[in-house]
């Protein structure tokens, strides 16, 4: 471990709790605050920040090493603000405040985030106070002053078939001076629905945190349960999980590449990518009996096997799509009018990607060389050779290019996994927990790293479960990437990020 201030602080932890596979340290308030400060100084990446009754947890990671979780007790309804030192934590602790009523002391932004004044109680998971109903539109946006500025409010109901959220643009002529997001519209209370819930019911809810990442979320949930119980999954089940996760990545990347080009009026790419996406969903339905493969990954393995015929169908679909996609990629790369729109647009500086630990194509297009499949390796990816494309230009084009290369890498991975599909069972029974136990897992969703932490109780119950989608750390960066671009390029930038609303709002 590093010889740095956080290591010294962890050595003085009040208790080390067995969380698998990472350690969890319980710290006194002052030590937790010091860790937060060091995270703000760049000693660690922050992977997640969440609360449970009477406790706040933060997952941190020294680059290239195993992460850990640090926790501190909430004392008299307060905990030290992480956001005052480390900006990526601001929205997370605003969410903690709304859900639990706990006050982040010294927080730079005290506005509510998920609570729009429409719930029937305040702090629904913690303090459970009387709700103070207020007009949902009554929300102080950050002030923007200057000459010739005007505001454009957009949403929550948008023009396309997309999720709801509010964007407030402040523009000078056509140029965006500031974008401020307001999210939380699709908050469904997922943290509450997975508290004190039977494992299978919690799993069904987690599978619907964000429909496009259902495989990745179920994968992380299953692995967290298995880690908590010390359960080994049969190798065949792991390989099938990998195939499903890569099929999900393919379908979403095709959708994203098409949608980005469509937002620059280059509809031919969308038309073709729509067919590729459909091809992948159709083969997923044929093999796994569900187009999005929902609820197929469960703790203990998978509910659907891949037959010899299934493997053949998947291979045939890839053989058909790969050359056709290569042609569309050439079209994208050889057409100056689309390149003119995507190159140089929506630039995300590399230092911001690092500070926010931005995962997925958003981070990798801005030089952040991280992929959970390789850097927090898990079955079936351990030991498999696969490409993790990293680019440095950080613009819309780079985010398209990363996806293009990941399509190729995912196809290779699926072929590799199918070629050496181990024999054996695909599902083992899940034993009951002997006592309270904790597990954590990170999977690489198409959007980036997705973290699930949970605590199990005897009787097959989930005491508390928290899901952190990659979008938490990408949404704020979209505000930075759009600055100085023209309003008309916002759809392009937004699609190239493709953050989840539901996965963020929970």
């Amino acid at each position, binding site marked *: 471990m590093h010889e740095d201030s956080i290591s010294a602080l962890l050595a003085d932890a009040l208790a080390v709790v067995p969380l698998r596979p990472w350690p969890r340290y319980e710290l006194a308030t002052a030590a937790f605050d010091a860790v937060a400060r060091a995270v703000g100084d760049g000693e660690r990446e922050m992977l997640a920040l969440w609360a449970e009754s009477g406790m706040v947890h933060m997952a941190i990671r020294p680059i290239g090493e195993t992460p850990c979780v640090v926790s501190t007790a909430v004392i008299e309804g307060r905990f030290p603000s992480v956001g005052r030192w480390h900006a990526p934590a601001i929205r997370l602790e605003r969410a903690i405040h709304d859900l639990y009523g706990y006050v982040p002391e010294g927080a730079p932004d005290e506005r509510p985030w998920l609570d*729009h004044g429409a719930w029937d109680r305040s702090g629904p998971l913690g303090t459970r106070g009387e709700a103070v109903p207020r007009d949902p539109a009554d929300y102080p946006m950050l002030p923007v002053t200057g000459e010739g500025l005007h505001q454009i409010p957009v949403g929550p109901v948008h023009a396309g078939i997309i999720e*709801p959220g509010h964007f407030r643009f402040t523009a000078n002529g056509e140029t965006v001076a500031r974008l401020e997001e307001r999210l939380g519209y699709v908050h469904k*209370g997922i943290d509450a629905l997975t508290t004190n819930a039977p494992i299978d019911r919690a799993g069904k809810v987690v599978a619907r945190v964000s*429909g496009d990442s259902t495989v990745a979320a179920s994968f992380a949930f299953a692995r967290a349960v298995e880690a908590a119980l010390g359960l080994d999954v049969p190798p065949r089940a792991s390989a099938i999980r990998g195939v499903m996760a890569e099929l999900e990545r393919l379908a979403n990347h095709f959708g994203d590449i098409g949608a980005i080009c469509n937002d620059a009026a280059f509809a031919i790419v969308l038309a073709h990518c729509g067919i590729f996406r459909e091809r992948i969903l159709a083969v997923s339905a044929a093999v796994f009996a569900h187009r999005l493969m929902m609820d197929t990954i469960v703790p203990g393995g998978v509910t659907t096997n891949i037959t010899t015929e299934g493997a053949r169908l998947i291979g045939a679909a890839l053989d058909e799509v790969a050359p056709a996609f290569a042609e569309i990629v050439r079209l994208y790369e050889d057409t100056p009018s689309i390149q003119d729109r995507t190159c140089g647009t929506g630039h995300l500086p590399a230092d911001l990607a690092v500070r926010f630990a931005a995962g997925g194509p958003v981070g990798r297009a801005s030089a952040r060389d991280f992929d959970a499949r390789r850097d927090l390796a898990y079955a079936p990816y351990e030991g498999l050779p696969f490409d993790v494309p990293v680019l440095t230009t950080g613009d819309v084009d780079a985010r398209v290019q990363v996806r293009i290369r990941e399509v190729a890498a995912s196809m290779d991975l699926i072929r590799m996994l199918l070629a050496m599909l181990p024999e054996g069972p695909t599902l083992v029974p899940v034993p009951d927990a002997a006592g309270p136990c904790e597990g954590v897992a990170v999977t690489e969703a198409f959007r980036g790293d997705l973290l699930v932490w949970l605590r199990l109780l005897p009787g097959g119950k989930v005491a508390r479960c928290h899901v952190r989608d990659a979008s938490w750390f990408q949404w704020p960066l979209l505000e930075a990437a759009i600055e100085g671009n023209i309003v008309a390029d916002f759809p392009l930038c937004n699609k190239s990020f493709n953050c989840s609303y539901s996965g963020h709002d929970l």
Partner: protein
Amino acid sequence: MRTLILKSLFAKPVTIPAPDPSAAALEEVGRALEARVRRLYGRSLAIREVDAGSCNGCELEIHALNNAVYDCERFGLRFVASPRHADVLMVTGPVTRNMKVALERTYAATPDPKWVVAVGDCGCGCGVFGESYAVVGAVDKVIPVDLSLRGCPPRPLDLLQGLIALVDKTTARQRSAG
């Protein structure tokens, strides 16, 4: 580009043949129509999609209606950008408390006569998000619903069959009345 266009000229279409309207949807729409204003839609419906709290799964499948495989425009079904241009609101849910006002306003902004199609198990009230402080519930708890298309998420084919039933019934009623 040239080779792509040439290929497209000689390739067979990827679009699926037109499916029959769903029997269940026909019956439900038929029932709903009795008490509603009839109007000539000319086999055409302008649809505005509203996500009132969904996980985005339903949106992915509604999106697919627009692709070359399902190509919903050949049935006169077109997605529009504003509720003011819409005959039909396709609403996914569960309706969250944070989206309730926005859904009510979208409904109010849609000109009469209008139809509401609740999409997905959550929008129809049988999804996994039932009991929560943050959720109002099914779409019909907030605005009147004419047709429910269940599924988690419903497949594009199911959506298409339900919507074609809606178009057929509306047109048939108009013809017999007219």
